[in-house]
């Protein structure tokens, strides 16, 4: 079961780094969100608090956030591709290098307990974090930046789960709330970027530099 989840996460991350359509990327992020939120059920003893937490997490990560992303996508009228700065073949090469790197890091971590007999699982969060950062730096669309942030955050969440840390209801809900507001604020920002610049291409946000500007702020 654990190995299956590991495979699903690795595959979805690879798909994220080569997918050219924003909509399918959003779907993958939703699926990852669902996997990550269900993961604690595997390791911990199930009680009411944990169940409530999982229900809240899954509804935020797998339903609300993707819906918000889809809405921003519609508002910004993004139909074109994700516009990578790096071509797809190189993207996949970088991804695989990232996977190897994650394997290397995981093998060097002094984690004594293996998770349900599989030491592979510790690789998955690192690969997710790597993919998230890769999406942020290698794609020009503002929307892919937010997706990268979400994948990164999911990776951190999964890392906490894999290490088997105790869950603290208030803190976890607070973090979810923060992520939710972050995506909301970023969505509003995307709306304004789209209206002001007629594009949401962050690669072209290069007006601010060390030269002074005139006029009223």
């Amino acid at each position, binding site marked *: 079961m654990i190995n299956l989840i590991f495979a699903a996460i690795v595959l979805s991350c690879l798909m994220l780094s080569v997918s050219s359509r924003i909509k399918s990327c959003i779907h993958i992020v939703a699926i990852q969100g669902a996997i990550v939120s269900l993961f604690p059920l595997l390791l911990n003893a199930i009680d009411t608090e944990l169940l409530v937490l999982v229900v809240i997490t899954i509804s935020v990560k797998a339903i609300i956030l993707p819906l918000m992303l889809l809405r921003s996508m519609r508002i910004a009228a993004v139909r074109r591709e994700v516009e990578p700065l790096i071509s797809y073949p190189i993207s996949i090469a970088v991804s695989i290098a990232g996977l190897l790197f994650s394997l290397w890091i995981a093998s060097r971590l*002094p984690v004594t307990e293996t998770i349900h007999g599989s030491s592979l699982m510790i690789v998955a969060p690192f690969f997710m*974090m790597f993919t998230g*950062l890769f999406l*942020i730096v290698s794609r020009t669309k*503002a929307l892919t*930046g937010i997706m990268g*942030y979400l994948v*990164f*955050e999911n990776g*951190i969440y999964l*890392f*906490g789960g894999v*290490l088997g*840390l*105790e869950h*603290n209801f*208030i*803190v976890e809900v*607070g*973090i979810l*709330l*923060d992520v939710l*507001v*972050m995506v909301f*604020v*970023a969505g*509003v*920002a995307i709306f*304004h*970027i789209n209206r*002001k*610049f007629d594009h949401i291409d*962050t690669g072209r*946000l290069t*007006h*601010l530099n*060390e*030269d*002074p*500007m*005139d*006029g*009223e*702020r």
Partner: protein
Amino acid sequence: MITLFVLIPALIGLLCLLIKSSALRVTMIVAATLHLGLTVSTFFCDFEPFYHGWFAINSASQLFLLALSVLFFVVACYSRDYMGLNSRIIKYEARYSCCMLLMLSAMSLVLLSRHFGVMWIAMEATTLFSAPLIYFHRSHTSLEATWKYLMICSIGIALALLGNILLAYAYRSVDSPLLLDNLLPLAASGDIKWLKAAFIFFVIGYGTKMGLAPMHSWLPDAYSEAPPPVSAIFPALMHCAFLLVMRVGEVCQAAGLGAFRNEILIFFAVASLLFAAIFIIGQKDYPRMLAYSSIEQIGLMTLGAACGVVGMVGSLLHMLNHTMIKGMLFMISGNILAIYRSRNVNKVGGMLQISPLTGIMWLAGFMAITGLPPFGMFISKLMIIRSMLDSGVSPIVFVVLLLLVMIFIGMLVAFIPMTMGSAPSGTTLKPSNPRLRWLLLPAAVLGLISLILGVCVPNTIYRLIMDAAAILSG
């Protein structure tokens, strides 16, 4: 009781969305006064810890709270006149007041919480509430600055979340390991490797928010694009992140990792001073210059924090001074911008002739920020340098002094032509608005506080700083 610090600004802030008149400005001042009153009352009565000790006040949080509260009160008074300056911005005023108050609430939560998880949530909340404030003027450039701020800070703070997880794993045997007061007595029992990793992630994560180089890239853009009252509040935000790093430092110290902590802090501090010096020299945009100066000050504070108790005292005194002086300078820069309508140093000149009061205060601010006596920063910088000599990092002292001289010259070259000389030809100066003079009053108050801190530190504050330094340096 302790919850009032968070609840009052938050509730009044939400209320602001419903008010649609000039009553808004009074509302903000009322909230700021209540917050200041609460902060002052911490000196006279004990505030009980709340919710299993998750929220509590100690000397360190009291000191930072005092700086925040005073600054916010002055900024609220400044906002009242600033909003009257331009009829175009009035329609955004409700949102502005709401975000400012929510930010105050989140910053108070950062300072008062003792649980690393809650601190993280509150810190991210400050980012989210301040992002709309940067976009206040609705220009293309401010939007760009907002986007950079949002993305860079969110990712930075996400790294601090990773730090939280590593910290919790290092102390997995401790009951609720993220609670600072549970952690400190058992610090030595932790897994040292994981604690080291956690500390690095905390420094990088919250360091992004502090503006430590090389994670500072959002800072000059955000500072220069935000309206002056918001830029004036930002130093307090940086100091909140500074306190968080110091709290993790407390754990490191207690676990016997003091030397490791100091090495990391000194590295980032010197890097910050270096970046500040490079970008201040030849800088033609004065709000950006002030932003880089903030990076310099935060670098100095971090440096002091790595050099024993004396350094920590200097660093905390520096924090108080930086809060006041940077607030003052940004407020005056709002005035200069209103008069000259340019952010270019070369297009601002002869301020002493055109608006003598602004010019004198701008010069005073320059003296204060570069650490000339009789302002408070002179003493705090002296203490930081002194502590470095004591703790035997002499080669770095030389480098630091050199960088400070470079920064001094870089700022001198910009500030002197701005105030002295004559106004550059071809500039159309805005006829002086009577409101502009009122805008200088809050700035003068902040300058005066820094002056008092330089001449004699009041006994209460002195003891508070001593206690806080003893706590933070372990």
